[in-house]
């Protein structure tokens, strides 16, 4: 099992629940906190960054659940048609999950680049889907700035998400027992020597 974090394999439900809880709070935060809009002119989406972490550190069921539930939660607050955000999120996470053995997931730079790619790809795919469905989202030259902010914000958030989950794994998960110095096969059998 590919599991590079402090989470134990015995706690198979702990990590998905933690990831989905984080997604739930992230969507709520995006809808209630308007400071990024005031300061940067766009809201930063944390779901792509979370999807990168999930694709690299969790199983495919969790990736699928995050795409479906995260997309549903996001769309429930938005004027998006319900379900539009599911496919872009999954498309961001699925290829990363397939190639996770080849990715240096512990390097912050790799996390940053993957976060940037996912944060740029998810809104672009969502808008493409909306346009295909005949919807008219509010767009213009300023949308490019918003896209750059979303990409940079998501990229910066990805290493933070990794660090946060590592910390949560350490604080809330089972710790691995340290190996004992005592080894029974190395024990000197006094009786045999005496004989």
């Amino acid at each position, binding site marked *: 099992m590919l599991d590079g974090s402090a989470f134990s394999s015995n706690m198979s439900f702990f990590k998905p629940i933690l990831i989905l809880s984080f997604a739930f709070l992230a969507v709520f935060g995006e*809808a209630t906190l308007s400071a990024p809009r*005031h300061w940067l002119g766009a809201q930063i989406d944390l779901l792509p960054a979370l999807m990168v972490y999930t694709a690299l550190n969790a199983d495919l069921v969790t990736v699928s659940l995050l795409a479906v539930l995260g997309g549903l939660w996001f769309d429930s607050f938005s004027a998006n048609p319900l379900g539009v955000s599911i496919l872009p999120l999954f498309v961001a996470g699925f290829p990363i999950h*397939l190639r996770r053995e080849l990715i240096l997931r512990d390097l912050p730079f790799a996390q940053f680049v993957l976060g940037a790619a996912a944060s740029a790809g998810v809104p672009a795919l969502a808008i493409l889907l909306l346009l295909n469905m005949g919807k008219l989202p509010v767009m213009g030259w300023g*949308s490019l700035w918003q896209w750059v902010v979303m990409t940079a914000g998501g990229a910066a958030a990805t290493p933070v998400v990794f660090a946060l989950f590592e910390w949560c794994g350490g604080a809330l998960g089972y710790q691995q027992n340290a190996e004992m110095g005592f080894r029974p096969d190395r024990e000197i059998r006094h009786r045999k020597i005496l004989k």
Partner: protein
Amino acid sequence: MFKQQNYLALGAVVFVAVLLLSLPTRATERLKLAVGSWFLPLFGLAGAAQQLPADLADSVLPRRELLKQIDELRRENQQLKERQVQTVAIAQENDQLRGLLGWQRQSPWKLKLANVVMRDPANWWKTVQIDLGSRDGIQTNQPVLTADGVVGRVSSVSYVSSQVVLIGDPNCRISALVENATHDMGVLWASHPVDAPFETSFARLDHLASSANLKPGQDIFTSGLGGVFPKGIPIGKIADVTTEYGTVTSANVKLNANLGALEQVWVLFK
């Protein structure tokens, strides 16, 4: 590389997405409201957290400051009472004159105050959520305004909250009347494209007559056409005018209400 479980996951997610996108609009709206209701406990927490600093500030405010504020509020209250008396007299006179002319009597507006609790997390829509729902008598297409002017209309309603689509979103179109000699009319719609993401208080006035005589600074009000917005609610002022071959084709409108900083709004009941 592509195992069976990968096919299964891909198929399941695509199936769910396609199923949701192909549902009828009414079913989608109900499902949306149901999913949105999962966040209800967090609404309360967020409200309490927002209220906490205000409560703390109130508790540490010095007595002298409070007395000063009470004095100012009394004075303001007195002025408003005098203005109300004048307004009632004007309204009665207006009703009498309308009666003499055989015009229909105007019913006074009924307003309900609502708090803006959420904004659209997607950057490509302009909607907000308010804390009034069907239990408060809210229905779709009710106008929403602030003291400065109109801000949008109710687009969907759940039991405890409603979604308001703001001016500038393609789903909010308002028939507008320009206060000039020719009383030009147009439609405020589709929005000012997001050329300046920090500027949220502009919209575009289109569908103008070829003889329109627009100038920057002219006031714009709702025309009353369309059946959603009553006549005479202020919208904004014309900021600049676009002309092609000497004919005015559209105008940028600076909205009176600051849509980027909405905290409380009024929902208008007809």
